[in-house]
């Protein structure tokens, strides 16, 4: 186990190096940070001074090492838009994103277990068809549109919940529902199908034949065997939500998280901030992946064998 964790850490180090390289190539080689970040009216001297300040007049390799060194020490430079270090901006909005994502995913996971298990009880029945149909519909709706419809109904017409911003618990409701929808649909579908597979297996029949109550068979035996694929998907949903869906949902509800900050930074041409956010999310993803891998080896001894 110890050597596995070490190997996994080394591999993640390589991945972070890869991300650093991609960020470097895209921003410095393809793009031109000087003209992107300075106003159009900047003089040639100002441009030269700025290029010197961020080290653009150095050879490419030296630039890369300076760049990588800065990222690893979490020195992302100064945000041109907010006039303060990028790391401070990120430290301010990361907790907001994590709050939203964890509330949404916790709700989605609980609901998915419930709905998936109910649907699997009678495959092809009315309840199953209804749940599967709604799940498919949920996967087919763009999140930003669901968010806007919720605002339309709950805020504009019913005036029940606030439509944007952050503050009370009520502000969390609509963004969390919107963010939860897609993961909920996907997790429900997965749990339903793996549950149906499990319920058709011999050991379920044996347990029933022994006279074990069905609810106990379901919860103690079948549900347990669906854990591994379900948790794998849940981890993947966490990554997708944190780095993908939350950007959209935070924009719809003006939730002051990483995603909204990234979009605003792009609109203002604040390259350092965009870079910082991308790198932070990448490191978070790598961390989540390691934790999940180690967790799975601890839960399921079969994984260690191959």
């Amino acid at each position, binding site marked *: 186990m110890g050597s596995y964790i070490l190997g996994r850490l080394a591999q993640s180090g390589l*991945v972070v190096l*890869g*991300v650093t390289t*991609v*960020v470097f190539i*895209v*921003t410095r080689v*393809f*793009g031109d940070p000087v003209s*992107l970040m300075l106003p159009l009216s900047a003089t040639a001297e100002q441009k030269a001074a700025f290029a010197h300040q961020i080290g653009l007049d150095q050879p490419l390799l030296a630039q890369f090492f300076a760049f990588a060194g800065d990222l690893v020490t979490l020195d992302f430079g100064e945000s041109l838009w907010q006039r303060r270090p990028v790391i401070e901006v990120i430290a301010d909005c990361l907790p907001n994103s994590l709050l939203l994502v964890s509330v949404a995913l916790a709700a989605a996971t609980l609901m998915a277990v419930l709905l998936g298990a109910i649907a699997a009880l009678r495959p092809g029945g009315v309840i199953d068809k209804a749940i599967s149909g709604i799940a*498919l*519909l949920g*996967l*087919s*709706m*763009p*999140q*930003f*549109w669901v968010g*806007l*419809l919720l*605002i*339309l109904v709950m805020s*504009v017409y019913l005036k029940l919940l606030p439509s944007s911003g952050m503050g009370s618990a009520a502000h969390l409701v609509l963004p969390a529902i919107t963010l939860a929808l897609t993961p909920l649909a996907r997790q429900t579908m997965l749990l339903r199908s793996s549950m149906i597979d499990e319920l058709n297996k011999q050991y379920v029949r044996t347990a029933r034949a022994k006279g074990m109550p069905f609810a106990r068979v379901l919860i103690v035996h079948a549900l347990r065997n669906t854990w591994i694929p379900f948790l794998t998907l849940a981890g993947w949903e966490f*990554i*997708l939500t944190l*780095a*993908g869906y939350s*950007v*959209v949902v935070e*924009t*719809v509800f003006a939730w002051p998280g990483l995603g909204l900050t*990234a*979009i605003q*930074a*792009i*609109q203002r*041409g604040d*390259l350092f901030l*965009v*870079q910082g*956010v*991308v790198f932070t*999310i*990448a490191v978070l*993803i*790598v961390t989540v*992946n390691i934790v999940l891998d180690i967790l799975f080896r601890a839960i399921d001894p079969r994984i260690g064998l191959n």
Partner: protein
Amino acid sequence: MTQQQARNSAQATWRANASALAQELWRDKTGLVSLIILVGIVAMALFAPLIAPFDPAAQSLSHRLTPPAWLDRGVWTHPLGTDHLGRDILSRIIWGARLTLLIGSCVVLFGGALGTAVGLWAGYNGGRTDNILMRIVDIQVSFPGILLILLIVSVMGTSVVTLIVVLSLTNWMVFARFVRGTVMSLRQSAYVEAAEIVGCHPARILFRHILPNLITPLLVLSILEFTNIVLAEAALSFLGLGIQPPATSWGLDIASGRDYIYIAWWLVTFPGICIVSLVLSLNLFSSWVRITTDPQEREKRFAHSYMSRRGKRS
């Protein structure tokens, strides 16, 4: 058998297959309805200049924010109402289908071609090539495409070409993984070994013997990827990172309608319904294609319908 006869019989089998397929589609109503909606949307995009009642960009400030026709202030010249600049929503929806479908097709084509090529190469060669290529796929899969998209768009700006390139670069991995897995298992099969022993060129084995097995599953995968790309394009356009005005796109229309959500619900509602119907139909149609082309699934369905018919009779 002469050549003429062979051609006739080939034509006859083809015709029989096509009519069997049509019958099958007629029996599965979800598949049929989804196909009709898809054909409708494609026709809408192709014939947009003929169908659309107005120029999608034509502004008319005296008619701004007209509600849909069935409401109080609505007029039948603008069945779905007008937006904040007095542009006809129906016409914008009809024109908006074009870029969505164009981008989706291009990305599926490029991403699919890249992924299939990588998958064939890795799966056929195995060994170190396979290791390196699949490691790249693993790493890229573990990173949501949006990070790369944010980065590239912030540096290079937005355009339809950038959008296609970026989405292709973030959507090829599924194809690579799938093709590689299938190729690896097919390489073990007797007929591929036979072809190797006879001395077939690897390219001939790959394209003549292995690739035909992949066509239908690749089709299903492409349709599913298409839905992801439609949703991704809509989301990016909504965020202002995708299609830019004056071009029209459903996602873009929803974004501009967002500012008027308190006074005009129809601006965000109708383009959204279009996205949902396109994606939902694609999902349903792909599941029909999958079930119809998979012998195991067909057998299950046959048994199911047979049992239910017997159940009814007794």
